[in-house]
């Protein structure tokens, strides 16, 4: 079966194999929910243990979250910065992500790639990702190396030093990442086009990975200015999970981070309000090497903290989580008109998007398949919004949510990540413990109301993704400007 899931996170490393697949299976779980438990909420049979986190703020504004975890030999050290693709400077789409890569280069007291010496050379691992609202640096190390990571994170928060050769080389890496994800992947161009359709005003309309041209325009001065502007203690959250002594951790954090100055300049924030969509729109994207035609329906969605977020996430699970989900059963199994179909929510801090998609099957022209797929997707959404929803279907989703949350919390890295998303989306890491309850409290009437409001009664953009007819277009040829 074709696996097609929008990849919203860009990471420093190429991900190998499917080890991360379980964590990614329900990506919306860790992220958001907003309504308090209603009277109809049913208690889960087994409880999700509390993260038991402890937090404090240093005088310079750095928020520190500690998640004790007795008995593990691994520690997770993460720093989440409140800066993401939406903060890319004008004409520099992809910059926040390119910058993330530069954070592994030289600092005043670290040679380039010393982060790898401190992590993987001692049996740990490091990674980082850039999303629309956030850039997070995540290391896992043997517990006895925890303090060395604190030193290194403080070092690169203060003393990043960049040079032209390493910038040029890393820019080339990021451009290859873009080619691999967007140009060489059979449905890469389709997902790359979605943000530009979903958002009309907000900088979310630029894909986080950016464009080859904008990446070429970036300069060393841009890197320095970006670090100065956003990489500061009052724009960061330090999260540490593992088996440590509380007092010793506090002392080490004070020692390495306490002396970092809080700059006086305010942190610039995106204040653009995304307007509601006024009219429907239809586009066709023709590309080389489209094996089966595909279709995406795109609506604007609410922000992550919106009261409707939890119900939209549950709607997404009912429509497309697992083989027994409605869209899979109807389009893939029963009618055999699609290889894959789904409904995804991507609710960011400022505004969101909702995407229904389907990939067709072999043997019939796109012109015949795509209108039928469009109708089928809308029919399934309509049936969920207007028809009956069995209790068993809700029970299934609740159990899926609980099981995925427990699986994520097996490791220090998973617990720290759950706290990080809660902090970013709700401004309070402790919300990680309530996210599940809130999702489980969603009732049928909530799902139906939010689908009517945000999907059925809203304007949408429709994108048809088809094979181009003639020779490969200039867009498919290699781009200029490679070193």
């Amino acid at each position, binding site marked *: 079966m074709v696996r097609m899931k929008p990849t919203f996170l860009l990471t420093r490393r190429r991900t190998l194999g499917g080890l991360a697949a379980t964590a990614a299976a329900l990506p919306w779980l860790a992220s958001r929910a907003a309504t308090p438990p209603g009277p109809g909420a049913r208690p889960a049979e087994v409880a999700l243990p509390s993260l038991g986190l402890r937090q404090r703020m240093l005088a310079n504004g750095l928020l520190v979250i500690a998640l004790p975890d007795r008995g*593990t030999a691994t520690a997770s050290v993460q720093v989440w910065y409140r800066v993401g693709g939406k903060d890319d400077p004008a004409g520099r789409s992809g910059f926040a992500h390119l910058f993330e890569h530069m954070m592994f280069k030289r600092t005043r*007291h670290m040679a380039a790639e010393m982060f790898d010496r401190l992590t993987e050379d001692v049996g740990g691992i490091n990674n980082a990702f850039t999303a629309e609202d956030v850039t997070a640096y995540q290391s896992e190390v043997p517990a006895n190396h925890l303090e*060395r990571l604190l030193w290194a994170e403080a070092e690169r928060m203060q003393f990043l030093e960049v040079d032209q050769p390493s910038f040029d080389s890393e*820019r080339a890496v990021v451009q290859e990442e873009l*080619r691999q994800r967007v140009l060489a992947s*059979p449905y890469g161009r389709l997902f790359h086009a979605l943000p530009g359709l979903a958002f009309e005003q907000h900088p979310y309309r630029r894909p986080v990975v950016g464009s080859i041209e904008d990446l070429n325009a970036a300069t060393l001065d841009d890197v320095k200015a970006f670090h100065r502007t956003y990489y500061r203690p009052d724009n960061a959250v330090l999260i540490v999970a593992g088996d440590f002594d509380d007092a010793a951790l506090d002392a080490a954090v004070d020692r390495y981070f306490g002396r970092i100055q809080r700059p006086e300049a305010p942190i610039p924030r995106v204040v653009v309000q995304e307007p509601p969509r006024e009219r429907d729109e239809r586009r066709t994207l023709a590309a080389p090497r489209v094996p089966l035609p595909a279709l995406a329906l795109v609506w604007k969605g609410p922000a992550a903290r919106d009261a409707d977020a939890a119900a939209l996430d549950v709607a997404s699970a009912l429509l497309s989580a697992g083989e027994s989900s409605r869209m899979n*059963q109807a389009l893939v199994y029963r009618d055999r008109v699609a290889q894959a179909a789904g409904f995804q929510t991507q609710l960011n801090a400022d505004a969101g998007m909702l995407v229904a998609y389907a990939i067709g099957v072999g043997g019939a022209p796109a012109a015949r398949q795509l209108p039928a797929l469009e109708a089928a997707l809308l029919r399934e959404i309509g049936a969920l919004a207007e028809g009956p929803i069995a209790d068993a279907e809700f029970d299934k989703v609740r159990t899926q949510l609980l099981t995925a949350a427990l699986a994520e919390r097996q490791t220090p890295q998973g617990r720290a990540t759950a706290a990080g998303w809660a902090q970013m989306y709700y401004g309070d890491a402790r919300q990680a413990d309530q996210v599940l309850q809130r999702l489980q409290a969603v009732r049928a009437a909530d799902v139906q109301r939010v689908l009517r409001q945000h999907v059925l009664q809203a304007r949408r953009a429709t994108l048809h993704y088809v094979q181009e007819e003639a020779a490969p277009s200039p867009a498919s040829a*290699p781009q200029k400007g490679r070193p």
Partner: protein
Amino acid sequence: MIRRRQLIAGLPAAAALLATGPAGAATADDLTAPPPAGPPRPVSVPPLHESRLDNGVSVVVAPRHGLPLVSAWLLVRVGAETDPLDRAGRADMLAALLTKGAERSGRRVRAPELAQQAEALGGSLSAGSGWRSTSLGMTVTTPRLEPALSLLTDVLRRPTLAADELDRLRVQAVDALQVSNSDPGSIASRVARRLYWGASAYGGVSTEQTLQRLQRDDLQALHRQGYRPEDTLLVLSGDVSPARGRALAQQYLGDWRASRIAPLARRDGTPAPLAPRTVLVNLPGVGQSSVTVLAPFTSLSPDDAPELRIAQVANAVLGGGYSARLNQEVRIRRGLSYGVGTSAEQHAEGGVWEASAQTDHRNAAQVAELLRAQVLGLAGTPPAADELAARQATLVGGFARRLDTNAGIASLITTLWAGGRPLSELNRFVPEVLAVKPGQVQDFARRRWPAAALRTVVVGDFSAAPEVFDQLAAADPSTLRLQASALDFSGPGLQPAAAR
């Protein structure tokens, strides 16, 4: 037990820090270097409780309490190695078909209801096959373990294998092949497989034709002949005691009677490389080239057993992690790719190692040459002490992190069992990896990886950089150039019989 090493030259491996208190006063204000690491903690493999039922079913329970979560895996020693060449994809199709209908409590349950039953337990029912095993597994909360096992064992033992479900899966698989045929990495890996293994047991590549040949009878026969209690393993890892795990195994698998049909024969798996040492495939319009370099690797035979850890360390020096040699050269020094990955595959009669990277078409020849040069260079440049220690630590650390999750522990167990290796290897892994010496790695590379043993596959858009593909072809007189549309894995080679 694990020894961690200092890798930054000159740093004293001294006082413990976070575990015992803040750093000593002497370094209190020196923030120009990281503090020393504390004393290492040993990597400990949790106790594994192995037993066998009277009918031969193997049972392993790996208790891990703390979270109310259990992973249950069933493994059968039947995989693609028994697929006839002209029915490549048979074991995989059977694995997929298992979850599409089964007899449960005397009633035929069809695919949609089965999926609902599985997902109502909180986990999806995953089934898949490798070269020598087929597995079924679920991760569920503790109260749902028993219904999950009931479902898994029904699906394993009493699948319906319905003809209409086979037809549906076949159409989907053919469509999925069409998608893979636009992906340069997928094409490269299939070409590489056939190039190295030829028509032997491990050279099988499924195609539309091999999938079309599969009939319900083939799958029923494979199930009857290959799915046998003595070739079956149940692994339970997580919140379950050894006694309860064993009792559940007896309850759901104890009445399975041994089969009297002769077991499946496996085709010979000796590598039978094709003549060309370089294969270039033209995929018009694709956005990047995929470059793969292949080399021999140790087999699972007892003769090769003493070299297993040396081979794993050699792989780690070249491709074990971000900082290993291949990624250093291709990504870190030159920015030519998002990353180089390596993998190794071992079977009874042979093994293969491969490195792959995607890059701009214009850099394909350079990347291929860099990968080859690093493989060949290991014989002349063995890892220095700190480099070796770093890559050993990477191997040990990756192993330790797998012990952190139920699914990770289960995968370590099933991998060993499928290869017929004892679980006690888990306790030896760390000391054996740390015992490997630089000279052993060098000697391994010198013997196993001469230039004549390497193979190169590049899949890209020839028209985007004709001179690059000409350069690749010029470097090796045995080069075969092909159109992606002309590839055919249904026979013993890379092209249809008429074209050869």
